[in-house]
């Protein structure tokens, strides 16, 4: 065998060794990284049922779901009107009020500011709806971002009405 074939063979063997080595290293590191992701016990806490029969019109309750506050508000007629009348062009994150509710009277959303995760205060801000005290984001009566640094509307969780008095979140 001449020298040329030798060096070809050698470089193939080097490349193959590096490749296998890199795959092995990646496979070793992945469990060390993935252990930090949400575990099964946390993933399994995925639904919460809430009795809403005691909430009067114009009142909000806050419940905890996946460690996050969920606002459940029984909106007044005035609030619903305000939320539906807004021109979509005026919105930072355009979304119709009807797409954010299953029943216009009930607004169910994750009470976490989409900026940096604080809990907005109710009945405050320019729209007398929600205002985040941390960095000054104003939300309207549909929980849509109207002013401030937050990029998105307050998130709507997956939920359904089990019956007239019970909401199942998750």
């Amino acid at each position: 065998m001449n020298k040329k074939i030798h060096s070809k063979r050698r470089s193939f063997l080097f490349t193959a060794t590096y490749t296998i080595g890199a795959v092995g290293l990646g496979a070793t590191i992945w469990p060390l990284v993935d252990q930090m992701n949400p575990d099964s016990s946390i993933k399994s806490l995925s639904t919460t049922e809430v009795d809403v029969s005691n909430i009067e019109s114009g009142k909000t309750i806050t419940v905890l779901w996946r460690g996050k506050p969920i606002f459940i508000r029984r909106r007044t007629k005035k609030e619903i009107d305000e939320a539906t009348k807004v021109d979509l062009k005026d919105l930072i994150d355009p979304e119709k009020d009807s797409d954010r509710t299953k029943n216009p009277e009930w607004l169910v959303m994750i009470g976490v500011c989409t900026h940096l995760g604080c809990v907005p205060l109710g009945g405050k801000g320019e729209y007398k709806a929600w205002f985040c005290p941390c960095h000054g984001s104003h939300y309207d009566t549909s929980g849509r971002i109207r002013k401030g640094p937050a990029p998105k509307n307050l998130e709507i969780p997956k939920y359904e009405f089990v019956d007239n008095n019970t909401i199942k979140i998750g």
Partner: protein
Amino acid sequence: MSEEKYVPKSKLARWFDSRLPLLSLSHHLTEYPTPKNLNYWWTFGGILTFFLIAQIVTGIILAMHYVANTDLAFDSIEHIMRNVNYGWLIRYAHANGSSMFFLAVYIHIFRGLYYGSHKPPREMIWITGLIIYLLMMSTAFMGYTLPWGQMSFWAATVVSNLFGAIPLVGENITAWLWGGYSLGNPTLNRFYSLHYLFPFLIFALVVLHIWALHVPGNNNPIGIDVKKNRNETMSFHPYMVMKDLLAMLVFILIFLGFVFYAPNFLGHPDNYIPANPLVTPAHIVPEWYLLPFYAILRAIPSKLGGVIFMFASIFILVLLPWLDTSKVRSAVFRPLYKKFYWVLVVMVILLAYLGAKPPEGIYVILARIATAYYFIHFLIILPLLGRYEKTSPLPTSISDPVLDKLSIVDKFKKTAAEYEGENVDTFK
């Protein structure tokens, strides 16, 4: 100050040193030549070393009593404060120690900026220093989470949500950091683990920082290279050691003043309320040493933009040795740079003040101006100064300015003698 190779005296010491050269290392460290004109701004390296060790020692002790569990963490801190012998002292020393650590590191950084210590050939000292600073900030942030009070919880929520601003993978990253869908027990546990680890990484980087320092040797207030063979340097021990110790004692007095007389002055009362994921405190602010960056974050009216500018404000410092192109190191000989330097200091302090204020009205406008100036200083003013500034003539030796002062004394003696008509040689 001999540069020749060190040989231990006894046979045993020679045997040992040729196998593990610890004696040579210790000889190098004690005899290390330092410029004789170093002023007290150069004592902060020693002060910082003291605080790193103090934080590690008090931290290891606190870890013996602290419980990293969301149900128990807050109570275990109260247990340390009320029941553990001297627990209050050790916790207050640890909490205030971090503030003093940052105060010292800011003085140390701004000293470097003034005297041009980031310039060639000391770029690697500057960069290892910045890595230490980043590690210090992450360590302090994670440590602040551990008491699991309201400020702990919401500061950690806001900071970890910064990573949520990253496009596409942001939410996956925050879930990975938290180990859940929100800040919880897995988060507290990993922060505790890393809070214990990072100081040792800092320690390792301090070794690299000092190693990089010992290659070119110290910069000095005049900023010109010292000539080691012309009596311009003194051995580190005992001369600099004694000077460092004096400064350290004064600084420790201030530190103990806080620990004993105002232990909660730099903290927030809200952190004595247990963490509640349903209620954000009306006014949340980070610890004082992070306020300038917090002000930059809020000055930009976009989530991703704010995060980018905040991180950029730190990473721009890595590029500083190449942005500041002036060949003259010390601000003493740079009349324009000196002015802009003080404007920068004022702007950073202004940013810190604005970071503590609510994000509305005039505060937002001022924060935007100060943020803009911060970047303009590094990206525009420094490169322009490097090109157009007319610097004062440099002395040929670090001894010159001192000798000049002596000649002023001589002149004074002469005038006095003429005036009084008598010999005033006794005047010294």
